[in-house]
């Protein structure tokens, strides 16, 4: 029972981070129809930025959250405006390839700048924790979860309530009609891509607190972002949050599973990914557009 509660907590805490990772990816995909393979690289840059600020100027990682967001938003905005925008309306596979190239570029530039060394952000309070009812909760992860909730909340409000948010959603449905309503599509796209990058940067900052910082660190998160955003429903903010939490919890519980098939003993923790993916498939079969996805007209 205690382990059950602990796993639930572990899963929720891990899921919060995954939600932030998936959020920006999901928006860019859902709104611009671009599968942004550079998302992992943005995340990595966010983590390095946090590391560098921490190592050189002792900036607390939580304080560098807004810095990561702004810097990566700007980077994303520029990349969209000067590179991706040239093929923004090209088939989805073309932009897929372009972002693949961009990702290789950024990862390898990072490799030159920071080398392949593993870096870490270890603050004075890192690892600090409290225990209630036998369940241990690390403070940093709790704050990370709260930050994730706040970020998704703000995003959700902004997308549904603000004028720009509405224009973003409209543009995702019909570029031509949006233009005829006075929307400057290139600008909207740059904002969305910037947002995606900015959110990846924020995720990178949060991740740097628990995960080793290195140039290739984005890859496993990118794959999880794929799954989480589809699990929750593409382009949906609540979807990313719920998808992230479901994924985190499933992974946590998968760890404690054990199978025996004939003489073969299989531990669930080795199968974490497979179990999470089977859950994804089941969800999609029951709800073909994800947990929060709406069937489009």
């Amino acid at each position, binding site marked *: 029972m205690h382990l059950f509660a602990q796993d639930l907590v572990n899963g929720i805490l891990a899921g919060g981070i995954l939600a932030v990772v998936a959020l920006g990816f999901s928006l860019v995909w859902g709104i611009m129809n671009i599968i942004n393979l550079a998302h992992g690289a943005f995340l990595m840059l966010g983590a390095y930025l946090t590391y560098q600020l921490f190592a050189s100027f002792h900036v607390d990682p939580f304080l560098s959250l807004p810095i990561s967001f702004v810097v990566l938003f700007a980077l994303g905005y520029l990349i969209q405006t000067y590179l991706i925008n040239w093929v923004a309306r090209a088939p989805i596979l073309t932009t897929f390839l372009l972002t693949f190239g961009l990702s290789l570029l950024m990862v390898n530039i990072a490799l030159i700048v920071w080398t392949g060394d593993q870096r870490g952000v270890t603050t004075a309070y890192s690892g600090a924790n409290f225990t209630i009812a036998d369940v241990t909760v690390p403070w940093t992860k709790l704050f990370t979860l709260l930050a994730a909730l706040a970020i998704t909340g703000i995003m959700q409000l902004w997308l549904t309530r603000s004028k720009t948010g509405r224009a973003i959603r409209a543009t995702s449905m019909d570029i031509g009609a949006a233009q*005829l309503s006075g929307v400057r599509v290139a600008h909207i796209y740059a904002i969305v891509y910037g947002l995606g990058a900015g959110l990846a940067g924020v995720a990178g900052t949060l991740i740097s607190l628990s995960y080793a910082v290195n140039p290739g660190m984005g890859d496993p998160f990118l794959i999880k972002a794929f799954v989480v955003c589809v699990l929750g429903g593409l382009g949906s903010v609540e979807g990313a949050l719920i998808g992230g939490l479901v994924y985190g919890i499933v992974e946590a519980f998968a760890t404690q599973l054990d199978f025996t098939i004939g003489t073969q003993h299989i531990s669930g923790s080795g199968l974490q990914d497979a179990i999470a993916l089977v859950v994804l498939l089941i969800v999609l079969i029951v709800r073909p557009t994800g947990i929060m996805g709406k069937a489009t007209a």
Partner: protein
Amino acid sequence: MTAAANASRTAVGPLVIDGLCAGYGDTQVLWDVSLHVEPGEVVALIGSNGAGKSSLLGAVSGVVKTWSGTVRYGERSLTGLEPDRIVVAGVLQVPQGRRLFGSLSVEDNLRMGAYLRNDREVDADLERMLTLLPRLRERYDYLAGRLSGGEQQQVAIARALMARPQLLLIDEMSLGLAPVLVDQLVELLARINATGVSILIVEQDVQTALEVSSRAYVLETGRITLSGPSAQLLDDPQVKKAYLGV
């Protein structure tokens, strides 16, 4: 942010198209087209399918690139501007096929029409639209993509009106609409026009088009072949034969 939003709804000047040529890829579809719409006027553009009517409206609203010739609106040249800049200039298009934002609610679609406006009267205008088109009030929270064809056409017109345009370009307004609804829209156009908005209307229902307009142009395979007061064209034997099926 925008001139259009806060400016008066009276048209700033005539729309003057001069020697316009345009096309898609290598195929030219418009040949040396010249026409004008005076402030406060309702002008109809008629022609058979594929004549280039939609392309002409597109060239004005910036979605079709012009090859040569000019489009001027009042003091401003619209030639080669991006569509969103043309909206800023006060020229709004109701596109053929409605092009609603399918997964946005009716309300959000209407609010998108007011995207460039920063004034405080947006809500009041919204209310006015709902009074004008009561069906929209019933469907206010619906996703636009779920509406029937006719309901969608109403949303499309209302959306354009939400921008408080000075010149409205309407493509195939009556397409797929019940006769009773066409009546309502015709009245609606008259009322909009009465507030000083000029209208350039493209219509397959030539009868209706000529009834609501004061002047009309006939476009045939990309060229203007005939123009004049609508009443006169209604009686023109050529027009009768080709477009009215009489």
